[in-house]
């Protein structure tokens, strides 16, 4: 009997303690952000979908079409089209398709790139009405982004040393894969 009464009193006290805590938080300020009108800062390290790095001097991408990223991607979401124009020494990137619906953001492509031509974008608000909205053409995006960044695209033959170094590295990657 006494134990029961003790339990009831103790229980009632614990209930009041709980209520005082919720009351305290109820009075204090809210902690949420009012989303569409108010956004939180996203960390610069955020890993969104991949993008080709824009060379700030030339306004072009750094890709040498070595296909490492396409080969290393575990989900097979990268498709690169490169061709060798008449008389040119090396392959040139024509299209870089990223199927973001398949991507699982492991980051292997960025790490494997010999010329550091890939980066993560900071876009976390990707929305679309169809899955085709997530098939990105990264070469087109480079042109647009260079435009947005206000970089004047420099015409060919301005980048002598880089491609050679890259060309030297590219076969290494091919070797490894065999």
């Amino acid at each position, binding site marked *: 009997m006494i134990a029961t009464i003790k339990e*009831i009193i103790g229980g009632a006290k614990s209930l009041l303690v*709980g209520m005082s805590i*919720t*009351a305290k938080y109820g009075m204090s300020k809210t902690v949420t952000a*009012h989303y569409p009108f108010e956004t939180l800062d996203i960390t610069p390290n955020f890993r969104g979908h991949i993008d080709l790095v824009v060379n700030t001097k030339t306004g072009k991408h750094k890709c040498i079409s070595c296909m490492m990223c396409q080969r290393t991607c575990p989900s097979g979401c990268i498709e690169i089209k490169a061709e060798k124009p008449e008389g040119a020494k090396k392959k040139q990137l024509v299209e870089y398709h990223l199927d973001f619906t398949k991507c699982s953001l492991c980051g292997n492509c960025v790490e494997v790139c010999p010329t550091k031509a890939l980066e993560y974008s900071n876009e976390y608000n990707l929305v679309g009405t169809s899955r085709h909205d997530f098939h990105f053409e990264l070469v087109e995006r480079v042109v647009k982004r260079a435009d947005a960044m206000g970089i004047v695209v420099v015409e060919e033959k301005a980048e002598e040393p880089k491609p050679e170094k890259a060309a030297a590295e590219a076969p290494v990657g091919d070797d490894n894969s065999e």
Partner: protein
Amino acid sequence: MSDALIQLIIILALALVVVAYAFGNSAILVWVERKLCGHIQRRPGPCEVGPFGLFQTAIDGIKLMGKQIIIPRNADKRLFMVAPVLSFVPPIIALMVIPFSKHVQVRDLDIGLLFVLSLAAMNVLAILIAGWSSANKYSLFGAVRAVAQNVAYEIPLLICLITAVMWTGSLSLGDIVNAQGGTWFIFYPWGFVAFLVYFITGMAETNRAPFDMPEAESELTAGFHTEYAGMGFGLFFLGEYTNMLLMASLATALFLGGYNLPFIELTGDGVMTELLRVFIFLAKAYGMIIVMIWIRWTFPRVRFDQLMNFCWKILIPVSMANLAITALVMKLGEL
């Protein structure tokens, strides 16, 4: 003839006001609940539609009305349709005898309290019908729980009300409020105990968390209204909030002195005094409802057998003893 006609018109007008008030009350209470729970959970709650999100419930109501009414294939169609109405209408009718102030009362019945209780008990019938007719095991579980819970909790509820009735000596709500005057029933120790027990049973009767056994969404998905969509669900929702108002109003009238201020007698029949009285009454009732909301968003749900044990082993003996003590005190006072 004309006298009776005027009487009838007044009653009808007041009844209309009360019905409108019941709808408005539900809308406001949903908003209050969402806002309060939001702030308790450290988020702002509804804040987009209208100032402070005040019109959110109106929009939600329109959305619910626009939704298709889905009736499960195996359901008992007629009962399935009747249940939500049965849950919503009786508490509104019961509001007719609540004395919001000296004159703002549709009808002061001599057996007002009995009238209210008999209508309030319809709620469990509605839940039973809803759960049975849905042809869903979860709904049935909810209905079974609701019946057992409400039957059990009606006993201490009645005993507490009898305590108040004994003290004031009337079943008419108007008389009960008048008899309390400046000294509310809750100021006496036996009154306080009766109020406490009534408050707990009231929460259980309206199926509010932590006693929301019939719903218990983590156990029974949504309990008795699992199969209801659109306005069927909306009516249950309205019914729940109207029931809350009814429970709080009864407590206000019986224990908290109704429209009276503590220790001060309000005299006069002017419009301003009447408005003040309505305000006092509603302030008390809504204060209780806010406490109920606060409790809901703080505690976990009790288990069903514990709920029943709590009622039969603690609440009923306590309320019985309280009744006996009240009787004893009254008898000693007479001597």
